[in-house]
């Protein structure tokens, strides 16, 4: 082994390289405050490895992106975990970039002769944000789609930015080219740029060395110098381990990254950017109309310029914190403003009921879509996942075959009863009080026998009792429980006082030319009506509805019945 190593070393000089890297003297000794750069390097390398792993399952096209991400998230072994690490890893990078920057500012490491490394560092920070922005869109889910629309929209709103926006998103609107471009930037351009700048950053760092506390004398620094390996490296790896541990904990606690329902351009998703962009997002709320550019470009641009110019703004003679109070105060104010804006955005959202409701609806939608995706998504992709849902297909069948005559909540034809809230108590009350209204049987040609029962003919107390009795006859306690006392009163009225029983039977199977009320309103009953509404215990001679027996499959009829039944559950 040692001979093999000697052979390799004599030809490559790897040993010397290692000695130089590992033996780098750290004046003043190893310190916890130096770990941030190493942690960032570790996080970047981990992101690269995770990104490659994700790329083995991800497909960047509008029809595939969501479905492939859902497959990775919900079906592939370890997929959710690795995707979660990658997702939270980007947050971790932002956090550590900020910590790194604070440390550099506090120790005055941006000052001469380290200006170039400060600038490279700022560029690296910008790249980290660009990674986050481009990666957010890739799953092509509601959240990524809508949040990124805002980002590219800002680009387009800047004078002269329209062309740039069109180039970046590959056209005037989002589509396949948007994804392929964001993907190419995210997995090729940004990693190469970041990797290259990182090499330059480390090279310059090695050239100038660490920036030890300004209070230590030259003599003291020399006396306490330690080699990088193992003293500083141990602290670095310890910090990486803490970071890695936090990432794993976060990933497990959240079951990885969120994946919302597939992007739907027709929806009204309440878009929010990732938390580290919230301050910029909040800023947009304060500037309207032509002033918008202040929030989108001028303030962020001013901040960037300030940071770039920091080595020149800082004219203080010494690196000690006490002599740099003015600069430290400026940077501190800036950070406080970012924190404040972020906090305001978070609080506003927490108090915004519309946003909270939108979020919980979006989450419910997401889990349904992902459940349906387990069966596989049709090649049309994304929103085609809904076609795995029998209820969705039923809705389509309804609009094609039923909506010509039946409305739902006023939308659709009026030749047959409106089925919005079908067979709820409210619906039944309407059917008794106003059977001839157009949203009941007013438009149904053969249906003329049922007369309206107004308050004089049937006082409200009696009406409620009868309706309760009808609910009992439906006998579906899970979805529509009834008040037994009231129902019993209704039954008594039905048998002894009212004339309903002259036409409507209540024992299953009996026919009387008007619908029998046993089980009326249940999904099975609705399915029978769809098959053939002319049965003796249904509408018999007054049946106007065409029979769908044989025109629709049993499965289609059942799904349709379930849909209509569901309309009366809310």
């Amino acid at each position: 082994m040692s001979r093999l190593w000697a052979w390799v070393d004599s030809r490559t000089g790897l040993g010397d390289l290692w000695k130089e890297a590992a033996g780098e003297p750290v004046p003043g000794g190893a310190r916890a405050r130096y770990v941030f750069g190493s942690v960032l390097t570790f996080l970047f390398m981990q992101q690269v490895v995770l990104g490659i792993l994700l790329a083995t399952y991800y497909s960047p096209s509008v029809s595939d992106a969501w479905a492939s991400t859902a497959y990775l998230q919900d079906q592939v072994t370890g997929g959710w975990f690795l995707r979660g690490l990658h997702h939270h890893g980007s947050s971790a990078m932002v956090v550590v970039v900020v910590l790194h920057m604070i440390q550099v500012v506090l120790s005055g490491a941006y000052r001469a002769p380290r200006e170039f490394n400060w600038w490279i560092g700022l560029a690296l920070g910008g790249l980290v944000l660009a990674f986050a922005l481009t990666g957010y869109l890739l799953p092509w889910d509601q959240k990524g789609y809508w949040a990124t629309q805002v980002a590219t929209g800002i680009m387009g709103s800047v004078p002269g930015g329209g062309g740039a926006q069109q180039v970046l998103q590959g056209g005037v609107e989002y589509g396949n080219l948007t994804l392929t471009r964001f993907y190419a930037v995210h997995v090729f351009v940004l990693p190469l740029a970041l990797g290259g700048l990182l090499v330059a950053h480390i090279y310059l760092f090695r050239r100038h060395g660490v920036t030890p506390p300004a209070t230590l004398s030259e003599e003291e620094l020399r006396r306490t110098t330690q080699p990088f390996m193992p003293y500083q490296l141990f602290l670095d790896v310890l910090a990486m381990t803490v970071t890695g541990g936090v990432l794993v904990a976060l990933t497990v606690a959240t079951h990885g990254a969120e994946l919302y329902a597939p992007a739907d351009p027709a929806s009204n998703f309440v878009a929010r950017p990732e938390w580290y962009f919230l301050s910029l997002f909040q800023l947009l709320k304060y500037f309207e109309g032509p002033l918008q550019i202040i929030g989108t470009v001028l303030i962020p641009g001013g901040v960037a310029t300030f940071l770039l110019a920091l080595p020149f703004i800082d004219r203080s003679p010494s690196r000690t914190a006490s002599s740099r109070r003015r600069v430290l105060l400026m940077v501190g104010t800036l950070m406080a403003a970012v924190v404040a804006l972020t906090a305001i955005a978070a609080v506003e959202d927490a108090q915004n009921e519309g946003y909270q409701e939108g979020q919980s609806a979006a989450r419910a939608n997401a889990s349904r879509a992902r459940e349906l995706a387990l069966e596989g998504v049709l090649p049309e992709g994304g929103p085609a996942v809904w076609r795995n849902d029998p209820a969705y297909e039923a809705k389509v069948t309804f609009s094609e075959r039923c909506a010509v005559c039946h409305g739902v909540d006023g939308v659709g034809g009026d030749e047959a009863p409106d089925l919005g809230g079908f067979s709820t108590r409210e619906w039944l009350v309407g059917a008794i009080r106003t059977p001839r209204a157009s949203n009941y049987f007013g438009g149904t040609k053969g249906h003329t026998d049922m007369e309206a029962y107004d308050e004089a003919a049937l006082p409200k107390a009696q009406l409620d009792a009868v309706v309760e009795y009808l609910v009992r006859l439906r006998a579906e306690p899970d979805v529509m429980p009834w008040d037994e006392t009231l129902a019993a009163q209704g039954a008594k009225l039905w048998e002894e006082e009212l004339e309903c029983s002259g036409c409507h039977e209540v024992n299953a199977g009996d026919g009387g030319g008007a619908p029998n009320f046993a089980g009326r309103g249940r999904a099975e009953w609705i399915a029978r009506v769809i098959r053939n509404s002319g049965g003796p215990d249904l509408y018999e001679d007054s049946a106007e509805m065409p029979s769908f027996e044989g025109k629709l499959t049993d499965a289609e009829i059942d799904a349709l019945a379930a849909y209509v039944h569901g309309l009366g559950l809310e």
Partner: protein
Amino acid sequence: MAAPPDDPGRRKFLNAGIGVMGAGLAGTVLAPATGLVLFPLHEDVTSGGDEFVVVGDRAQFGAVPRRVEIFADRKDAWNRVTRVRIGAAFVVLNGETLSAFSTVCPHLGCGIDFDEGSSCFKCPCHRSSFDLEGAVTEGPAPRGLDALQIEDRGGSIAVMYQRFRQGVAQQELLG
């Protein structure tokens, strides 16, 4: 950090710590990564074609092989696709026996053709040749053409399209 700048005992301890933590960090990603990469080994990523598919009427097939395409519903990782072409077969009547052969060459998976002149199946890639009963007559193919299960359903001929491991002498079903 008032500790002595350098000390061999401390060095040893720190080096060990670096090793242990480094291995832990690597393992955190590499262990699940192994599961992710090897996922297709133990899961059916693609499916489809495990049912008989009608390819034509009995009368349409004779002693001259006829190529038929097989359509089926298929699942391919995240997609489900309905009625797509999943493969093709040659159906041929040898005496009284109707056989169906996969068009996938058992050597290395090229698509074979039927050569009317010599009345045999030929692989265009490596010159394997097969007779009408599927047996190898020439070339590097390690076994004959893969016969597919065939069913006569009252005059309609149905074939079950399956894929087999290539390059081995024994027929071995994939999936």
